[in-house]
């Protein structure tokens, strides 16, 4: 009897450790989903409703490149991110800037339109069926202290950290990065520094798209995707950014970790159907106690 109790407790403890490890690693992938949203919300002070569909665009294009050319998704992440950087830049410069000049609401409605258009395009081209980026290394895993960790989870985590650190250094150390930060504080004063703030807005959306491109490949490697899942990405990204604190890269990472942990712990000890509910309950409680988020200014 005593042996059985010890065994149950040990098994429960192992399950907890496993959930914490998986949750943290998944949190890394969530952080990448959130970075783009963090940039648009923190710097441009607007919400891009199509953020999830842009992530999905990268997943689908990586899928197509894998299917047609046999290109490894990790390799295709490079041209896809550069393509999305360019797309984001020109979309803001020649289309969304007009909406934004009119009002923030118009920008949001325009991105809602883009989101709906993209979702329907995905349905037309790739059908409502789920797709996945299937590669050989999906089966790889490593065992640490008796816990089997899939390679893609580690990939999500470490690529996420690399993206966050690179972006942070770019924002801190380069003139363009400083111009983005200056513009996020005060557009008018930034103009007095000689900064072309229209171009900086376009670059910001371009960078948000670039990170969405990386997120699309990572998430596509981790989970199957379908045309309607973009909205869920957007909801998760929004939660992460608000939770972490607007304008803080480290906050976005911490927000990702919290949501990742809450989701995996809920799925392990309660019911996977309650994952999103539990995430938003935690977001609600944290924001009620600290409205500016964990590391918000």
């Amino acid at each position, binding site marked *: 009897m005593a042996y059985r109790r010890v065994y149950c407790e040990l098994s429960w403890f192992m399950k907890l450790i496993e959930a914490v490890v998986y949750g943290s690693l998944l949190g890394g992938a969530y952080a990448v989903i959130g970075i783009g949203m963090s940039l648009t919300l923190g710097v441009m002070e607007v919400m891009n409703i199509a953020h999830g569909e842009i992530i999905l665009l990268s997943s689908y294009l990586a899928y197509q490149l894998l299917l047609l050319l046999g290109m490894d998704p990790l390799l295709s992440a490079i041209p896809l991110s550069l393509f999305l950087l360019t797309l984001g830049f020109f979309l803001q410069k020649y289309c969304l800037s007009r909406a934004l000049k009119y009002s923030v609401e118009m920008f949001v409605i325009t991105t809602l339109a883009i989101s709906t258009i993209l979702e329907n395009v995905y349905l037309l081209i790739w059908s409502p069926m789920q797709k996945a980026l299937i590669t050989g290394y999906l089966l790889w895993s490593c065992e640490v202290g008796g816990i089997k960790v899939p390679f893609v989870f580690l990939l999500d985590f470490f690529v996420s950290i690399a993206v966050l650190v690179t972006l942070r250094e770019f924002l801190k150390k380069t*003139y363009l990065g*400083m111009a983005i*930060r200056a513009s996020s*504080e005060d557009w*008018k004063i930034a103009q*007095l*520094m*000689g*900064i072309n703030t229209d171009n900086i807005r376009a670059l910001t959306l371009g960078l948000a798209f670039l990170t969405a491109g990386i997120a699309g490949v990572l998430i596509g490697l981790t989970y199957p995707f379908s045309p309607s899942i973009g909205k869920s990405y957007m909801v998760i990204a929004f939660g992460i950014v608000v939770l972490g604190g607007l304008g803080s890269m480290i906050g976005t990472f911490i927000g990702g970790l919290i949501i990742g942990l809450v989701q995996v712990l809920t799925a392990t000890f309660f019911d996977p159907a309650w994952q999103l509910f539990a995430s938003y309950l935690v977001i609600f409680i944290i924001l009620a106690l600290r409205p500016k988020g964990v590391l918000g200014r």
Partner: protein
Amino acid sequence: MMEEDNILEINNLSVYYGGLRVVHNVSFNVRKGEVFALIGSNGAGKSSILSAIMGLSSYTGTIKFLGKKIDHLKTYQRIALGLTLAPESSAAIFSRFTVLENLLIGSYLNRAEREKMLERVFKLFPILKERMNQPADKLSGGERKMLLIGRALMSNPKLLLLDEVSLGLSPLITDKIYEACKEINSQGVTILLVEQNVWKALEFANRACIIEAGKITRVGKADELLDEESIRRAYLGL
């Protein structure tokens, strides 16, 4: 006065906020190398004129800089020509930046000369060098003003617009800042000054104009204006 001696020519300038006209058909010139002051009470429209010159407010009329119309240019293009503004509000510093970062962003269009300009700014305001790694929002009011002027200088301007240099500062700090402004002017930078402290402004400026309710009521040499009975009574309480 030859036209080419003017660095800035303002003709029939009217400035608008929303639908409201706050400056009415103002015309004046600023000559190369001089200090020109716009004097008037709070709300007279002085800062609105500076804002229009920088392309930050909507206006009618024409503004010429170095003999060329700049009305079609955006703010960053005007900065590239050699115009710059040190704003009135100490909130105009980038509070999330360090002092050094604030100065560096001022050289956004003048990166090649940034070391030289930094040296020049630190020579004018040694306190900024001492505090260069501190967050800018930890500076005192006077230090913030110095940072605003220093940051404006980083673009190596030909014409520096100074908005309310002495506002909210102690007489001692005001004197220090005016000393630095004299030094800046002696280095060949033309200054267009907006000031409520009429005494200080007229002491510092070569020429000045008085603005009341958005209109110019008097233009002349600063020392002559300082001697005028009506001005001494209205603005200096003498």
